[in-house]
């Protein structure tokens, strides 16, 4: 048999004694990496949008926005208000979760008025005749330092009358 090179222990480095299980560790870790990719395909880490609809006798509010996003991503939220009766002063009120740690790039069409309503963002959409709809788009970007879960509340008012409220969560991954 040839002389063994320095630093080589035949039992360990040729016969792999005590190392037989090492490939299983590698396979397990590779499986973990694959599992993360699989979860991403299942939209766990964003950013496919989901749609939620809340209806009351006066109006229906449909919100289409991703429930999960990642730092730095651009995304869109779409709010569709369908009036069953004429809404004289339709107003969307967005909770802090729609603004904290997010940059609002554009709001289209521009609301008639913006204000703070008890610390929440109030967007006055104006008059919506019965049977018509108003679609509001907000383009966001996630601030890179934002992480965690944010409660996103949406309320629809007609003047001072609260018509409906919807609660959702936005998960932000680093």
């Amino acid at each position, binding site marked *: 048999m040839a002389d063994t090179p320095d630093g080589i222990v035949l039992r360990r*480095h040729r016969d792999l004694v005590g190392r037989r299980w090492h490939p299983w560790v*590698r396979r397990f870790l590779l499986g973990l990496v694959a599992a993360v990719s699989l979860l991403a395909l299942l939209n766990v880490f964003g950013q496919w949008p989901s749609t939620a609809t809340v209806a009351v006798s006066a109006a229906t509010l449909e919100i289409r926005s991703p429930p999960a996003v990642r*730092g730095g991503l651009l995304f869109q939220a779409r709010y569709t208000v369908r009036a069953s009766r004429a809404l004289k002063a339709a107003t969307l009120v967005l909770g802090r979760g729609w603004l904290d740690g997010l940059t609002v790039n554009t709001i289209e069409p521009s609301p008639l008025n913006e204000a703070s309503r008890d610390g929440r963002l109030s967007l006055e959409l104006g008059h919506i005749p019965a049977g018509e709809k108003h679609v509001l788009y907000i383009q966001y970007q996630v601030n890179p330092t934002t992480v965690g879960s944010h409660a996103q509340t949406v309320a629809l008012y007609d003047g001072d009358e609260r018509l409906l409220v919807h609660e959702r969560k936005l998960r932000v991954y680093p």
Partner: protein
Amino acid sequence: MDIVFRAAIAFLFILLLTRIVGRRELGSLEPFDLIMLIVLGDLVQQGVTQSDYSVTGLLLAGGTLALMQVAASYLSFRFRRLRPVLDGEPIVLVEDGRLLERNLGRERLTTEELAAQARLNQIDSIDKVRWAVLETSGRISFIPKQ
């Protein structure tokens, strides 16, 4: 502050990746390996610095990566038991001109690849190899027969 965490996580993730993809990918620069290296570098940069274009960000990210590297090499040097985890271990591929098929298969190395590496070392036949060892760096060292 988060840029330091990002850099540390990037370092640990790359360390994990390099340990699990196997040394075959580390030692060779085949087209697919090149793709992985180049793309991974760009992805890591974006994940670490994101929209931070500042010199401070560069110092923080670069400094953190350098410190993590020094820490990893110190741990490997200081604690013998950690070496297999951090650096891996050599594996014998050829003994006295005889291919150790099981060890080759474990590292997903083909006979042709081994022969090509031997030729790069001016060895025209595996029969003339006394020892071939896949080192922790991913390179194969050949000790020819006398």
